[in-house]
């Protein structure tokens, strides 16, 4: 037997060990959404982690300043590319706030419906990917199947699956297609079936519980201090939801619950998201019942570009068509902030206008960025395998975080 261990026995010093530094990403299978982690590993334990975001930085905010007000929409699509409609809605509502117009009621209902469908798609993807990265491929495929069906619905509405580009200032590109309510009904039936299958496969699975429970937990005070919003904040026990806290569109007219977790760990985040899918389905169903008939666009050619027939038959409409296309709509001078509940939390737009056809300043508050910044705090001292579910459940979306 060798000498007695001393009081200040330090394994690393005694054995001259070093930490193993590895790069996780930017092309690592776990870092979907292009991010890089610099890990300093002691065996399997993460001693230090540096999160390196920005690999998907495209200068979104600057790009927008070079576009007319309506030209920004395709760029907003690429923020949270899993829930494009919500981004569109947020931007459109901020500009409408600046202008001071309200969209027709039917438009607001359709915006809610498509937003919730997009949220479902995003949650399906997030949860499925989380399951996939824990090795449960079957669960992933179930939710991808559900997501594809939801995307089919969105495709039937706006013709696109991923980057919807559906919302316009003062309206929408088109009304809902015929038979949409019936399609929603059949799709939701299938989605609920898959949801139950997924739930059965994972929620009470002992291995899954062990992987998710007590990993990446955060207290509600910490979560607030780090600027968490959305499912991650609600998992920590704070029932904050923009849809309820500052109701926009018609969210105050529908009945839905805000699922809240207790410990803020990955399992709670998982369950909050799972429950939100169900709540989104409820919202969509209620909206379809409540939705009135009527126009979907503001009847004002100054803001909402009129249809082809009108603009070629009416001189005033024609002039606005020209002016809107060439100069962009002239949003009144001022600034506005509008937040919507994105799939990952509060997605805020802060826009400054100087009265010209272009935004002067555009700032997006991405929900992912503050959440991701807390990742090192959540994961330090844990095993490398814990990084995977934590990162998945924080759900960094590169397009949104890096802009």
């Amino acid at each position: 037997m060798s000498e007695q261990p001393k009081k200040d026995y330090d394994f690393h010093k005694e054995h001259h060990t070093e930490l193993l530094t590895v790069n996780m990403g930017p092309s690592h299978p776990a870092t979907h959404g292009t991010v890089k982690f610099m890990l300093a590993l002691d065996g399997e334990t993460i001693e230090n982690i540096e999160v390196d975001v920005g690999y998907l930085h495209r200068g979104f905010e600057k790009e927008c300043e070079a576009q007319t007000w309506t030209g920004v929409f395709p760029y907003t699509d690429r923020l949270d590319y899993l829930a494009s409609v919500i981004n569109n809605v947020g931007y459109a509502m901020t500009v409408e706030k600046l202008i001071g117009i309200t969209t027709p009621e039917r438009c607001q209902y359709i915006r809610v419906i498509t937003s919730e469908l997009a949220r479902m798609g995003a949650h399906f993807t997030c949860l499925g990917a989380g399951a996939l990265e824990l090795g449960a491929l079957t669960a992933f495929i179930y939710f991808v199947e559900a997501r594809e069906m939801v995307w089919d619905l969105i495709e039937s509405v706006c013709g696109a699956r991923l980057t919807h580009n559906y919302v316009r200032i003062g309206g929408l590109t088109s009304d809902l297609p015929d038979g949409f309510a019936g399609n929603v009904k059949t799709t939701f039936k299938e989605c609920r079936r898959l949801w139950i299958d997924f739930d059965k496969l994972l929620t009470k699975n002992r291995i899954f519980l062990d992987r998710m429970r007590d990993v990446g937990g955060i207290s509600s005070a910490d979560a607030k201090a780090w600027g968490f919003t959305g499912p991650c904040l609600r998992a920590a026990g704070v029932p904050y939801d923009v849809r309820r806290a500052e109701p926009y569109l018609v969210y105050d007219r529908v009945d839905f619950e805000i699922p809240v977790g207790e410990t803020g760990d990955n399992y709670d985040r998982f369950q909050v998201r799972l429950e939100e899918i169900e709540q989104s389905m409820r919202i969509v169903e209620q909206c379809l019942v409540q939705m009135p008939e009527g126009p979907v666009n503001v009847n004002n050619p100054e803001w909402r570009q009129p249809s082809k027939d009108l603009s070629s038959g009416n001189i005033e409409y024609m002039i606005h068509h020209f002016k809107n296309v060439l100069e962009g709509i002239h949003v009144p001078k001022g600034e506005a902030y509008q937040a919507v509940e994105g799939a990952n939390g509060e997605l805020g737009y802060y826009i400054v206008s100087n009265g010209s056809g272009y935004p002067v300043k555009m700032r997006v508050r991405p929900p992912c960025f503050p959440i991701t910044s807390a990742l090192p705090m959540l994961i330090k001292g844990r095993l490398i395998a814990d990084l995977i579910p934590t990162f998945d459940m924080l759900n960094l979306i590169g397009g949104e975080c890096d802009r």
Partner: protein
Amino acid sequence: MITVNHYIALSAVLFVIGVVGVLTRRNIIIVMMSIEIMLNAANLLLVTFARQSGDMTGHVFVFMVMAVAAAEAARGACDHPRVVQEPRDGGY
């Protein structure tokens, strides 16, 4: 026809290889492996004589040698970090 002498010769050669390894190599892990070679040479002899005399006591002793070698390897494995990485002058 294989006789006991064949095995003795083989065992001796292996043992000598082990000795040479212990005496010429500085790397402690290879020294320990050389010791294992010597132990195995002895094992071979034990098995051979057990077979020759028809008495399985030799097998029992091989069993014991293996147990001791395992214990030694386990102890050595966790002692290596200290010895290997803190070289002293001359020898190890």
